């Protein structure tokens, strides 16, 4: 498998074409605006939490295949997690796209493992990370702004 095939795994390409949970969530408890002005990636992340668990997550916006598929797969992974579990998943994901991680940590990432190839393209780490930083910001500030440039 070539470097470019490792970056653009089939699952990434499929989620780019048909992003899941790609909509505005009117009744949300937390949100954040993730924007990288230099490259133009621009997303809103919406979360609805009940007590300490995430009931629903959605995102909307525009950007490259890596940022959009990262948002799509993120929303699929977060439903039902506690806030602590969601933040731990975010940390593991950001570790995976920027450094070597243990097999145990990789296993905990499930389908998100398809983003491992991003590590070989340092200029694209900010694309994969944007929606996750927006998630972190939303859970921290409730209604803030995030950037990874």
């Amino acid at each position, binding site marked *: 498998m*070539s*470097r*470019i095939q490792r*970056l*653009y795994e089939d699952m990434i*390409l499929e989620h*780019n074409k048909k992003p899941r949970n790609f909509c505005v969530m009117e009744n949300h408890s937390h949100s954040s605006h993730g924007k990288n*002005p*230099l*490259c*133009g990636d621009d997303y809103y992340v919406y979360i609805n939490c009940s007590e300490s668990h995430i009931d629903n997550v959605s995102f909307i916006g*525009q*950007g*490259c*295949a*890596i940022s959009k598929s990262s948002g799509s797969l993120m929303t699929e992974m977060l439903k039902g997690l506690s806030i602590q579990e969601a933040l731990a998943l975010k940390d593991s994901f950001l570790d995976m796209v920027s450094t070597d991680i243990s097999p145990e940590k990789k296993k905990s990432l499930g389908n998100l493992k398809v983003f491992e190839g991003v590590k070989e*393209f340092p*200029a*694209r780490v900010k*694309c994969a990370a944007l929606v996750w930083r927006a998630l972190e910001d939303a859970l921290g500030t409730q209604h803030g702004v995030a950037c990874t440039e």
Partner: protein
Amino acid sequence: MIDNIFHHEHKLLNYAHIKLKEIKGLRIIGEAKEKNAIISFVLDTIHPHDAGTILDTLGIAVRVGHHCAQPLMERLEVPATIRASFSMYNTLEEIDSLVAGIKKIQEIML
């Protein structure tokens, strides 16, 4: 000497213009008659940063993004563009490589 460079760059520009126009799903941004040897373009449904990464792995250097002209991108309603520049050291064969690279991008992404 300067005239020779100008002539060579415009030969490359005209050749690239014709070749890029033939690619389905490619739109050239800026088609003024009097322009320097650079071509900005976008590809339907493919983000310029994905295109740039793939061209880079093929050894083809282009600039992608806003080119320090974010208001213009908003005016043109494009997220960013891909921009190829030609100079005295470039060749017609390298433009053929760019065309093949763009087709490779479409093969991967579409």
